[in-house]
């Protein structure tokens, strides 16, 4: 059935992926719904951290990568929920069900779009973190790019698959964290460890196993998502 689907469109896998990315980016560019909500939310998480921990200068150094990642994860979940809830409400999800496009390509398109949203949020939150906690981030930033990229990708790859399901349940926003947070434990541990190492200026060689762990997680989630998305996008 899926072979017949592809042949009757003529659109290649890559073309479908690009079309979904462009649709999501255009939608976001016009509404700026997800971006504004997630950045404000991430900022609130940082402010809440400050009040609940009252971290002194030494403590900030120890907990910096944890702060950053918890803010990213919470804000990221907000964004992931929004992308599919909007589609569900406006009937776009039904159109995607009906379209003859390869579900794997739709999934990858959504992953790339969500990754771009999360990256933009991170780009806004990191300077804010440095500013609010008087933390010198700029020096470590180049080495931080690796855990940021790999960790965000794994989180978004799993999150996109689960968010598509959560949007079709009765409790929507509540369902996503219940599925995503436990599944993303390896991604979170590895990302926090690598980011901490980058902040402390350790050489990446000593934390190489964590890079391998992130690559494994990314591969598992993106492969599983590409193959399983057809079972999520179905009426």
């Amino acid at each position, binding site marked *: 059935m899926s072979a017949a689907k592809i042949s009757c469109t003529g659109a290649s896998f890559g073309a479908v992926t690009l079309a979904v990315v462009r649709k999501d980016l255009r939608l976001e560019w016009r509404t700026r719904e997800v971006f504004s909500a997630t950045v404000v939310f991430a900022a609130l998480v940082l402010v809440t951290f400050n009040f609940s921990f009252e971290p002194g200068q030494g403590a900030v150094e120890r907990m910096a990568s944890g702060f950053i990642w918890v803010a990213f994860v919470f804000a990221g979940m907000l964004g992931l929920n929004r992308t599919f809830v909007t589609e569900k409400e406006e009937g776009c999800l039904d159109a995607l069900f009906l379209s003859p496009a390869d579900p794997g390509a739709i999934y990858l398109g959504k992953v790339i779009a969500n990754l771009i949203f999360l990256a933009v949020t991170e780009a806004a939150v990191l300077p804010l973190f440095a500013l609010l906690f008087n933390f010198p981030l700029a020096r470590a930033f180049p080495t931080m790019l690796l855990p940021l990229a790999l960790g965000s990708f794994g989180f978004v790859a799993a999150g996109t698959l689960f968010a598509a399901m959560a949007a079709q*349940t009765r409790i929507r926003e509540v369902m996503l964290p219940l599925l995503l947070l*436990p*599944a993303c*434990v*390896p991604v979170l*541990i590895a990302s926090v460890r690598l980011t901490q190492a980058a902040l402390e200026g350790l050489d990446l060689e000593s934390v190489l*196993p964590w890079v391998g*762990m992130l690559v494994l997680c990314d591969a598992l989630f993106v492969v599983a998502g590409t193959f*399983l998305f057809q*079972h999520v996008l179905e009426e």
Partner: protein
Amino acid sequence: MAGMTAEHEFPRGGSTLQDRMDRLLRRVRNVTLPLAGIALMGAMVMIFNYAPEEKTQGIVQKIFYVHVSSAWSSYLAFFVCFISSILYLLKRDRAWDLLALAGAEVGVIFCTAVLLSGPFWGKPIWGAWWTWDARLTSTLVLWLIFLGYLLLRPFVGEGERGARFAAVVGIVGFLDIPLVHLSVRWWRTLHPDPVVMNPEGPQLPPEMLQTLLVTLAAFTLLAVSFIAVRAELERLRDLATALRGRLRESRQ
């Protein structure tokens, strides 16, 4: 025998996958359930009367037999859920979904037993009910993953979509287990090293090892029986729903 009355309701002699699964589950349950009862009694006797008391830990160490066996049974049940989920997505037959659901539920029950029996040992030995040790943490994460599986189902609503979504979670969740294990293990470890599957051979005294093996066998039989009975129960629920629908139609 609650099962006896139920058996009259099953359509007999059919040849669909569901019919064959019904017969298989009933046959398996008829064998494993009595055997599990006998084996469990044997295991209890061995644990308290045959296996020697550990020198430093004393009587608390006996939790070990139940703890390890529960852990094994939960993995077995989650594996059943994983395989059945794959088969469900490939074949789209409700029979596989019933088995997957039963596997996940029984797995969560045994995983809960692991998480509950651990602290009773941990309190006197480690001095704390809970520590963020590698194996405790990864078991907790595993439990949470499949709790998500069970929570998801009722909120998707009745029918085939819930089965599909659950299967996706069952597959991704199970594949995630090795990664959770490895990452949490690198994160930290405090748990006693494996004493049975040790590279230098089992380090348990033979009486303890024999007791553990009997308990393991008993719990395996118990897990298999639970899965079969649970799948059967869900099947009966399906039949009841169908019958209720037919009754409503005939009244109109």
